[in-house]
């Protein structure tokens, strides 16, 4: 179940990334794509009848696989880092072009010639 959901989320994310023109929405879609890979990793470690991988003294139990969980912790932080930086760049672009429409920014950037290009702010 989590596996299939993660694939579906990946699909939704890609579609939004492709079809929505607003850069902020594109970033949200990217966040969803990254989140889907995290759900997938947690999903493969999951076992229905197992317990969270934290030992309680005196108890014996089967645990779910802790490794994907540990990997995912790093992945979440990396995704946050990417998102924060991407958002900063979007803000800079907005200050310059007064739009978040990716298509319009594309047109504007290709219109500007290298010579008259000035550093942003």
């Amino acid at each position, binding site marked *: 179940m989590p596996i299939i959901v993660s694939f579906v989320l990946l699909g939704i994310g890609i579609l939004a990334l492709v079809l929505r023109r607003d850069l902020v929405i594109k970033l949200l879609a990217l966040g969803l794509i990254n989140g889907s890979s995290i759900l997938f990793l947690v999903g493969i470690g999951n076992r229905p009848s197992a317990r969270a991988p934290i030992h309680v003294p005196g108890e014996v139990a089967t645990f779910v696989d802790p490794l994907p*969980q540990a990997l995912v912790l790093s992945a979440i932080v990396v995704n946050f880092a990417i998102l924060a930086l991407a958002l900063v760049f979007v803000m800079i672009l907005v200050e310059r072009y007064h739009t978040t429409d990716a298509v319009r920014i594309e047109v504007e950037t290709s219109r500007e010639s290298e010579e008259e290009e000035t550093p942003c702010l």
Partner: protein
Amino acid sequence: MAGHVLLALVPIVAVVALTQSRRLSAIIGMGLLSFLLAAAYLVMHAPDVAITEATIGAALVTAIYVLAIRRTGRLTVVADEVPGLLAREGDRVVGLEYEILRGFANSQGLDLSIRFVPLRRVPWLIAHGEADIGAGGIIPLTESIDPLDATPGHLDTGVYAFDARDGRPTSELAPDYDGYFSELQSKARNGLLSSSATSLDLARVLSLSRGAPLEGLDRLDGRHGYAFLVSKERADLKRELVRYIESLRHSGELDRLVARFVQ
């Protein structure tokens, strides 16, 4: 079971969130999705991941998005500093025009941001779309100064001019002040005010004359009023702003504000 329900909800929330046309709704939707995922991780025996996802994915990321695009937009005001109208006091901004603009921004659901710039830069910034409204002791001589539009005055004032120079009539130069208010202040202290400004309005004269008496100033004839500047292309913004000021005047709030800040 609870896990399955949570997981089934996630794609639905994702589709709803990503098809929103308002960015804020989309962001809040994705924040909600992160919380759902965190809950699902908890059910899937991954408490560490759930905590991290809830704190970073849901809280921190959403906070940063919202900070980056707080509310739906921003009302950018460029202004010269004038005590009583719009001036910094410590880390706050106070004054009559500030109160008007803040109320206006609130009524429009916009977020107010004020940039202090020299007065002569104000018209240029508005005309080039760098800011929405110009404020800070602006006294338009006519109602429209192409490509800008002025609102009807919200407070009557007087204009004082130094003796004419260069043979030009002083009234033409009336709105041309130079630099920040602090610059004027230091010039006034050194008695050099007339070299940088050709004319001054009542609010500036009052606050400058506290330091040293101002000499050589003549009051100009005619009615003058403080107003806001907007771009001609923003007719809707002007209409809303005028309507807001009118409503303030009708309710008597404007008089109260004037009494509080100017007299």
